């Protein structure tokens, strides 16, 4: 290792054998690094070796100094030229016309270095206004000297704006707009993979050098919104995969969704989008799904094979060697597994110090870091994404992925779907274990982001599904879209004003409320034992809660009721604040309930009449009665399918009849209970009588005893006296 001392102070160490090809500086002071950089820009083009040095230097300078400071250093060197560079030319004024003047030549070198910086890293200049100002100062200095030729070199007007990097919004893609389904069930796996890749790349390319650096140095996501957003997308996707699967009720349905996602993975592999691949495979192999033995038994062997292959590919074994090998073989567009490369950055940063030998910049470390960061920043600049974005689909997906469940909630859902068998793990407790979410770093998306996502999604949904452009979504249309959201409420909850149609505002309101409050809440309920004074039914099995006292368990937060043995199986989110609204929906004993129903009935009748009037005036052909009957029948069926639920609007006779049957049933049960109670009362009365007579006897005995004692005492006293 060569050590060069400058004015008695150690300022540069050279490599004996360079770690990174072309970089032979081991360590140096910042000034010395800048000087070396400037020296490289002779009259000729950069040779390979010096180009490598300059590339590393300009890419990495932000690790140890601000860009603004670097620009200022160039200005200082420029202004100091007259003193530091000796000019032997006779009578030289060091003017721009003196081409042979070493001072002037040095100035040219400085400007060419700045030119190289602008060309290689335009994003530094676009994102950093102090740097732009400093560069403008240099430009003015050049103009003042009449150096117009050099002024052109440091011109910033050609730097692209990079607006997309600055703000978090998604730039509008090509006008290309195919008509595709926004519905998960109809969506082709390839299409889904393409759109996810588009979303992923948008998030990935926004991560700036300084974001990587801050994460490597602080190991925290604080004040690192871009990286946080990308990680949020990753986790949201994993959760969405799990929730989409767990929202299905039968093992076969769940297996079908797994197969679908496994096909999505295949396409992601073809697209070389390893980050999304990791998120989906991570979701599919998550412990909450891996334990579903019934579901896994339904998986076709091909899906099992695909999943095995991908698990192998993404395995952390041997420091992710399988992934690294494949990743390096991929050319053109690719998205790396961000986590793996962040890990490398952190390890390298931990292992090597920033400064060595006192205050020298550890340039070998910079060269090593540059190998990773250069690759990442290069990939961010790729413009030809191999996928076409469909903004409607992207917007819908984006909102779907904003879900924010905890690991525990998903695991509990998994337990509810396929409860633990007694054979599989006898030692584990049957009650779900509570886990705190230990990844506290990623905060849920902020309300503004959610509002924006909701807005975009709703616009997209209406654009594609509001076929008659009346700005309302009908019930059938709604059912189709609801498939994308694992735990969406029924049509009737969204239809807040109960007009049988969902308006844009209703949909927005619902999703914003759902995202901000409810979806973040859990499947966990605060159940406590409760005594009911009117017949109440279980939310899970819809059976009556039997008994006289403590018939069942009620959730303190959302007031749903369940049997003791059903309460752990309830798969319904706990919606806080619903308590006040949620009356015991199935029981209708109270007067106030009757009132609400009659009120509702009146309103519904009014609605119907209005509808009839409107229809008959529109369509006088007379054939509409049949049509309407049909419609009514359809509606009836829909109502039946949905089952009784809170806040629904019972306007159909059929349904009312159902309700009546149920209440009849409840009445009969009550009568039976009543006679039972009467019998008990009689028994109790008998007992009371017996006890009363006992008391009489006891009282007599006691009084006799006391009197005897008193007599005895009297006699004692008398004898003593």
């Amino acid at each position, binding site marked *: 290792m060569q050590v060069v001392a400058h004015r008695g102070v150690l300022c540069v160490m050279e490599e004996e054998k360079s770690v990174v090809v072309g970089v032979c500086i081991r360590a140096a002071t910042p000034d010395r690094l800048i000087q070396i950089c400037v020296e490289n820009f002779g009259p000729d083009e950069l040779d390979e070796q010096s180009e490598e040095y300059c590339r590393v230097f300009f890419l990495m300078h932000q690790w140890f100094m601000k860009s603004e400071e670097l620009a200022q250093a160039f200005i200082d060197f420029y202004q100091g030229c007259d003193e530091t560079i000796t000019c032997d030319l006779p009578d030289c004024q060091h003017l721009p016309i003196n081409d042979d003047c070493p001072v002037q030549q040095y100035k040219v070198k400085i400007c060419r270095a700045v030119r190289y910086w602008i060309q290689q890293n335009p994003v530094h200049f676009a994102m950093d206004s102090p740097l732009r100002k400093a560069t403008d100062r240099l430009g003015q200095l050049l103009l003042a000297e009449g150096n117009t030729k050099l002024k052109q070199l440091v011109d910033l007007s050609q730097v692209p704006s990079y607006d997309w990097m600055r703000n978090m919004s998604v730039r509008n893609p090509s006008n290309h707009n195919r008509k595709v389904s926004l519905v998960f069930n109809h969506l082709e796996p390839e299409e889904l993979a393409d759109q996810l890749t588009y979303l992923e790349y948008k998030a990935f390319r926004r991560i700036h050098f300084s974001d990587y650096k801050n994460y490597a140095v602080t190991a925290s*996501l604080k004040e690192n919104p871009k990286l946080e957003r990308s990680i949020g997308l990753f986790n949201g996707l994993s959760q969405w995969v799990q929730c989409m699967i767990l929202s299905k009720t039968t093992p076969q349905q769940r297996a079908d969704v797994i197969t679908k996602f496994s096909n999505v993975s295949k396409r992601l592999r073809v697209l070389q989008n390893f980050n999304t691949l990791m998120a989906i495979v*991570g979701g599919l192999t998550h412990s909450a799904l891996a334990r579903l033995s019934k579901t896994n038994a339904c998986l076709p062997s091909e899906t099992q094979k695909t999943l095995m292959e991908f*698990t192998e590919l993404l395995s952390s074994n*041997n420091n992710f060697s399988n992934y690294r090998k494949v990743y390096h073989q991929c050319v053109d567009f690719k998205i790396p597994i961000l986590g793996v490369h962040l890990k490398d950055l*952190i*390890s390298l940063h931990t292992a090597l110090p920033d400064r060595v030998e006192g205050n020298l910049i550890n340039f070998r470390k910079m060269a090593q870091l540059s190998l990773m960061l250069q690759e990442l920043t290069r990939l961010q600049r790729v413009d030809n994404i191999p996928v076409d974005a469909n903004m409607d689909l992207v917007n819908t997906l984006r909102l779907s992925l904003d879900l924010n469940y905890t690991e525990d909630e998903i695991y509990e859902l998994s337990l509810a779907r396929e409860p633990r068998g007694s054979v599989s793990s006898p030692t584990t407790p049957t009650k779900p274990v509570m*886990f705190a979410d230990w990844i*506290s770093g990623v905060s849920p998306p902020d309300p503004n982001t959610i509002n924006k996502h909701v807005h975009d999604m709703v616009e997209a949904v209406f654009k594609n599904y509001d076929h008659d452009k009346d700005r309302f979504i009908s019930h059938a249309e709604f059912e189709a879209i609801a498939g994308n959201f694992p735990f969406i409420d029924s049509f009737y909850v969204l239809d807040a004003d109960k007009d049988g149609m969902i308006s844009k505002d209703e949909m927005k309101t619902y999703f914003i409320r759902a995202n901000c409050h409810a979806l973040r809440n859990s499947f966990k309920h605060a159940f406590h034992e409760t005594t009911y004074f009117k017949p109440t039914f279980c939310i899970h099995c819809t059976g009556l809660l039997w008994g006289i006292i403590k018939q069942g368990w009620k959730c303190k937060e959302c007031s749903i009721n369940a049997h003791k043995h059903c309460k752990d199986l309830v798969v319904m989110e706990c919606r806080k604040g619903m308590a006040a609204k949620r009356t015991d929906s199935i029981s209708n004993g109270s007067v106030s309930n009757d009132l609400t129903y009659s009120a509702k009935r009146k309103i519904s009748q009014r609605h119907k009449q209005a509808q009839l009037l409107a229809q008959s005036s529109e369509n006088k052909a007379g054939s509409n009665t049949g049509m309407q009957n049909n419609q009514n029948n359809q509606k009836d069926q829909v109502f039946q399918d949905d089952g009784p639920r809170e806040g629904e609007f019972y306007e159909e006779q059929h349904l009312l009849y159902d309700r009546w049957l149920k209440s009849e049933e409840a009445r009969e049960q009550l009568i039976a209970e009543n006679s039972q109670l009467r019998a008990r009362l009689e028994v109790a009365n008998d007992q009371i009588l017996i006890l009363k007579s006992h008391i009489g006897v006891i009282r007599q005995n006691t009084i006799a005893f006391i009197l005897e004692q008193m007599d005895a005492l009297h006699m004692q006293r008398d004898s003593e006296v």
Partner: protein
Amino acid sequence: MKEYKVVVLGSGGVGKSALTVKFVSGTFMEKYDPTIEDFYRKEIEVDSAPSVLEILDTAGTEQFASMRDLYIKNGQGFVIVFSITSLQTFQDIKTMREQIIRVKGIEKIPMILVGNKADLDQQREVPSSEGSALAQFWGCPFLETSAKSTQNVNEVFIEIVREMNTSPMKEKGGCCQIL
């Protein structure tokens, strides 16, 4: 020679990397490349039996929730690290054992609890007694380390090998495999 897969877990910033790097490279840290697989393999002799450790440092990936399950599936022994200077990091790892059990599907898992940054004793927020209480509750050893001064660094990995020797896990952990 026996091979062991060890996973180092814990919140961000507790010094997992520092601990791992110190162990695998000792004092010699002139040249370092975290991307090559050999870097995380190290031969050590425990109770006069030579063994090879393959260490997975999870630093930087703490926030990627679904990667954690994959790590746990792959690992045989677990080094669970918190920083004695941050109570939060101690709270974070309290659920870790449950999570590993959930993924592995078995109760007896070789692990060791580690309180790092012992050199910063004046900034201590987690008393030693709390660390040992949790370790006792988990039924695993507890060590306080300093990656900076290399205090107890090798001991952590020797202990985890001993743990793996006393409760050997099945090669492809538990009933939680997808196939």
